[in-house]
């Protein structure tokens, strides 16, 4: 299934990126992220655990950066994420594209598109739960990130969740003041995707 959305974070891009670079902050923002290890420049692995309502999920995952585009008009990264919960007999694979662009008033916008495959017992539950949960967790993540930036403001309405993925949202965005280091973008992508992953696997009864 395809998921696409964007949300704004009320802090300048540089500040957001520096937070992305801080693993402690990220762990605080991603529900259920117990472990996050950078294996090399392009590969990460970790573990997500969620015990919510009546489904308990514990998944090892890996993330591999596929490409990084560091253009004036915006930053974009693509990553491939894979996770597996053996006990639940479920696997997930996400092709993710993520763009970060500075926005007006010292804030920045994170836009993502995901092509997500969910296989096994969880996959059988179908799409509605996943769509619903992804939006929820996205909101939660955006809130946490805003709080981490010291600006406890409601994030922009991510009303496009569930819309078909369109062209990269960053195309028309103004150039960033200072280009972030690639690793920071990588972390941002990872975070967003993980939030999605967590979203998928949370399920109320």
């Amino acid at each position, binding site marked *: 299934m395809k998921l696409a959305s964007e949300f704004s974070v009320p802090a300048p891009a540089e500040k957001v990126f520096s937070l992305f670079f801080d693993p402690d902050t990220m762990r605080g923002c991603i529900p259920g992220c117990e472990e996050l290890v950078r294996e090399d420049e392009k590969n990460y692995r970790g573990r997500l655990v969620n*015990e919510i*309502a*009546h*489904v*308990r999920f514990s998944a090892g995952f890996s993330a591999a950066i596929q490409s990084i585009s560091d253009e004036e008009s915006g930053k974009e990264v693509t990553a491939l994420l894979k996770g597996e919960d053996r006990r*639940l*007999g479920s696997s997930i694979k996400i092709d993710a594209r993520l763009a970060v662009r500075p926005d007006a008033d010292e804030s920045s916008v994170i836009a993502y598109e995901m092509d997500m495959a969910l296989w096994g*017992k*969880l996959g*059988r*539950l*179908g*799409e*509605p*739960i996943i*769509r*619903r*949960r992804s939006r*929820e967790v996205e909101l939660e993540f955006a809130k946490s990130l805003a709080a981490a930036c010291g600006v406890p403001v409601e994030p922009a309405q991510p009303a496009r969740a*569930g819309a078909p993925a369109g062209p990269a949202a960053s195309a028309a965005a103004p150039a960033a003041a200072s280009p972030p280091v690639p690793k920071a973008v990588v972390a941002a992508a990872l975070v967003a995707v993980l939030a999605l992953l967590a979203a998928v696997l949370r*399920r*109320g*009864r």
Partner: protein
Amino acid sequence: MPRLHRPTSLAEAARLLSTLDNPMVYGGGTAIQILVKQGILFADNFVDLAGVPGLRDVSVDAGGVTVGPMVTVRRMETDPEVRQVVPLASAAYRQVANPRVRNTASVGGNIAHGDYRLDPPTALLVLGATVRATSVRGTRDIPIREFFVDFQVTALEPDELVSGIRIPAQPAGASRFEKNSSLGENDWPCASASVLVAAGRVQIGLGAVAPTPRYVTFDAAGLDDQGAVDAALAAIEPALDPIPDVRGGVAYKRRLARVTVEDAVRGAWKDLQDA
């Protein structure tokens, strides 16, 4: 499967819920068994209410109906007194699944499950029912309009169980329950609505068209039937937030919600005129 506990009193049931690891109330058992079979249910202990006395009681008085949580959905459909005092609720309970499931499914489980597609909550919202929740910490009453918090999330705490539902007597007026499926005729609803026109107000409960059952109301004074339909469609608009799935996309579900509400409002209006 999780371990099954079979308390014989409400107090024992509450105690089990407060002490066991990851407990879950086992009511009628229809929804739970399905989750068990899907292999994704996360619960270590079931607290079976079948042996707790008094939970199958229905008492009817002038002010309304008090229903135990283990009363079957089928009884709400067929009990003559229930049908007389809260006809809208009875009509909605009659539409749940099929008669065999209604024979087993319980009134308490039906709402505790928190499924946004279920029919009875639409009527309970309109009638202003109250959910009684019991735990070792005591008993509290939760207005049904505050009960459905989010997608399969209710206002119940993990150690609470539904120990009763109070449905106020339906006021004089007219009511309709309508639902539409989008695939097989006996499929889950794609949109449902309970409508009550009484005391100068229109009250609407919506099912399947948002992550939770939704409630809206507006003043009916001075409206004719078309005016009521227009007002109803305007009133429900902000409440519609459908989840797309195999039964339909967002646009179709919104459309079907409007048609369902329009049909229910027109039907109720007609009943009012005919009365």
